[in-house]
């Protein structure tokens, strides 16, 4: 998967106005150039990540997983809670192929892989 693609996609997109309803995010995307400031200057600017949930956690995979919107500096733990993923079921977190933890903060553009305990060989 091409991370560069996602980073450039993020750079083309600034979104604002997050509405949480019943734990599910709805996003109004008003495309403005990067660096632009929203009218009120108060709204959170969103970026996107490529998130994949595997094995028994694949039931939480969102339809827009390859460009899933997040607020910059959100932690993996906050993100998973918001998605309704029980943290007790999460064992492995990979961020761009490197092990992360629920405390790891995301900047946007990352590829994030989430697994329950798995083994084989």
């Amino acid at each position, binding site marked *: 998967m091409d991370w560069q693609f996602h980073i450039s996609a993020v750079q083309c997109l600034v979104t604002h106005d997050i509405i949480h309803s019943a734990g599910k995010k709805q996003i109004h995307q008003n495309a403005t150039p990067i660096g632009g400031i929203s009218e009120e200057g108060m709204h959170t600017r969103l970026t996107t990540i490529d998130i994949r949930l*595997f*094995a028994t956690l694949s039931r939480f995979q969102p339809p827009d997983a390859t460009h899933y919107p997040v607020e910059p500096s959100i932690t993996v733990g906050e993100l998973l809670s918001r998605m309704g993923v029980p943290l007790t079921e999460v064992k492995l977190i990979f961020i761009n*192929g490197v*092990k992360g933890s629920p405390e790891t903060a995301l900047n946007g553009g990352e590829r994030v892989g989430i697994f329950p305990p*798995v083994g084989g*060989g």
Partner: protein
Amino acid sequence: MDKILRINMSGADGPQWAIEPLGAYAGLGGRAMTSTVVAAEVPPTCHPLSAENKLVIAPGLLSGSAAAMSGRISVGCKSPLTGGIKEANAGGQPSQMLARLGYAALILEGAPQEDTPYKVVINKDGAFISADNSLRMLGNYDLVEKMKAEFGGKVGCISIGQAGEMKLAAASIAFSDMEQRPTRHAGRGGVGAVMGAKGVKVIVVDDAGAPMRPPKDPVAFKAANKAFVAGLRKHPVTGQGLPAYGTNVLTNVVNEAGGYPTRNFQTGQFEGASRISGEALAELENNRGGEGSATHGCHRGCVIRCSGTFYDKNGRFLTKQPEYETVWAHGGNCGIDDLDAIAQLDRMDDDFGLDTIEMGATIAVAMESGIAQFGDAQGAIRLLEEVGKGTPLGRILGSGAAVTGKVFGVERVPVVKGQSMPAYDPRAVKGIGVTYATTPMGADHTAGYAVATNLLSIGGQVDPLSPKGQVELSRNLQIATAAIDATGMCLFIAFPILDQPDTFQSLLDLINGFAGLSMTADDVTALGRTILKQEREFNSAAGFTKSHDRLPEYLSKEALAPHGVVFDVSDQALDEVYNF
């Protein structure tokens, strides 16, 4: 298990057999038995296909008892692929059956004077050996069908296909499963070629009338078995992940970690991984349905049930659920993302009697040379057909990745001691790189599965991308694995016993309750060390030095994407692995 069946194929009047007491081999099982016999009886400098080499087949210590997971069987010899000592183990039914018949080992030695395929039948009355030319060049599937017709639906078979008869260095030995199919293989190191050199095509094991092996302390044994099974069920890997998705659940993990060797180890991520993952395979199998589709055991007494059954598009049985290593070898490593083609290749490997890891690695090397294209599934199938037919090209490929690389002038050949690396790139999973380099077996992931700690956070955590801590990790796992390989236990019990001290204790209680012993964890470690030292001494006497405990040079020069890493565990550090 108080006797050994020794078959000498060299007799002037044909093969001779004798039943012997255990003598110096008392108390040994599985890999402890095979490696001790090979070290004691096989001249380290002999040719692996000569009469001096021996093929030792040994059930694990607990095989044939009511202990869960105890159906592994070990095969040992001097390897035609590596030139060193070899232990390859498999699941299937024959381990329990041989153990119930009382055999702690079956030793094939000598070589027949004529080129005739022999059939050995072992039952409660002894052994019966006969020449049978009708078996010549049969594939494992036809062979086992024939044995079923002759001996009934309950016998177990230990057999070789065409590859073993041709004495090819990638040849495996098949062990039949619960459905009497030849799907479980002692795959690695060319053990099938040694069986072929002994002239034995098939060993039929009939345990009718043989009782289950009783424990010395039935009360303690029963309680320990119950606790052990509960521990396996409680651990999420053996209780949930493996039954649901099989070993192939690893495809996505190793790919996410950037350590999935793609197109002959060119990169560490495969864009087609999700299409051949355990999740995709389970979905396909569940959609197609059929008996034992996505969750099935490879032998009676298995409570993990990581296997499954693969039916083709028309619902016809094709093969068992291909394992992770096979899906990788014939899939991502060859740039192939088609599960039906991979399953077809798995079936062909099982039928011809070939190691799926070695063949996938070999086809990838052949693809790098340009005789087929990466991603060409039909091309891979055609190459494998050549092996089954025994054409000159097929014989080259069936001799493994190292030979194929030499013949076709390929520099990048991922082997150690002539044996191909499995499904983890040692640059991005450095602990497994240490195991590949230093195990007496040649590149072998099962010999010290550092992937568990490097990638899966089982048994602690050691950063896969740093050289730090890998030597100690690999050493400890190699020691523990050698001991587990002696018990007849499936290696997947390692996941719960690494994480759950009480499950490790119940394993000890199980062994002690069965054998009337009082072994401690230290005794288990000592057993593992003894096995490894013995194997290493054999290799040393066969001409191996520390310069053989190295990965191919290109892996320390060419950086692997996406992490841009090389293998950088120093030679000095590698030489420390066996300082114990």
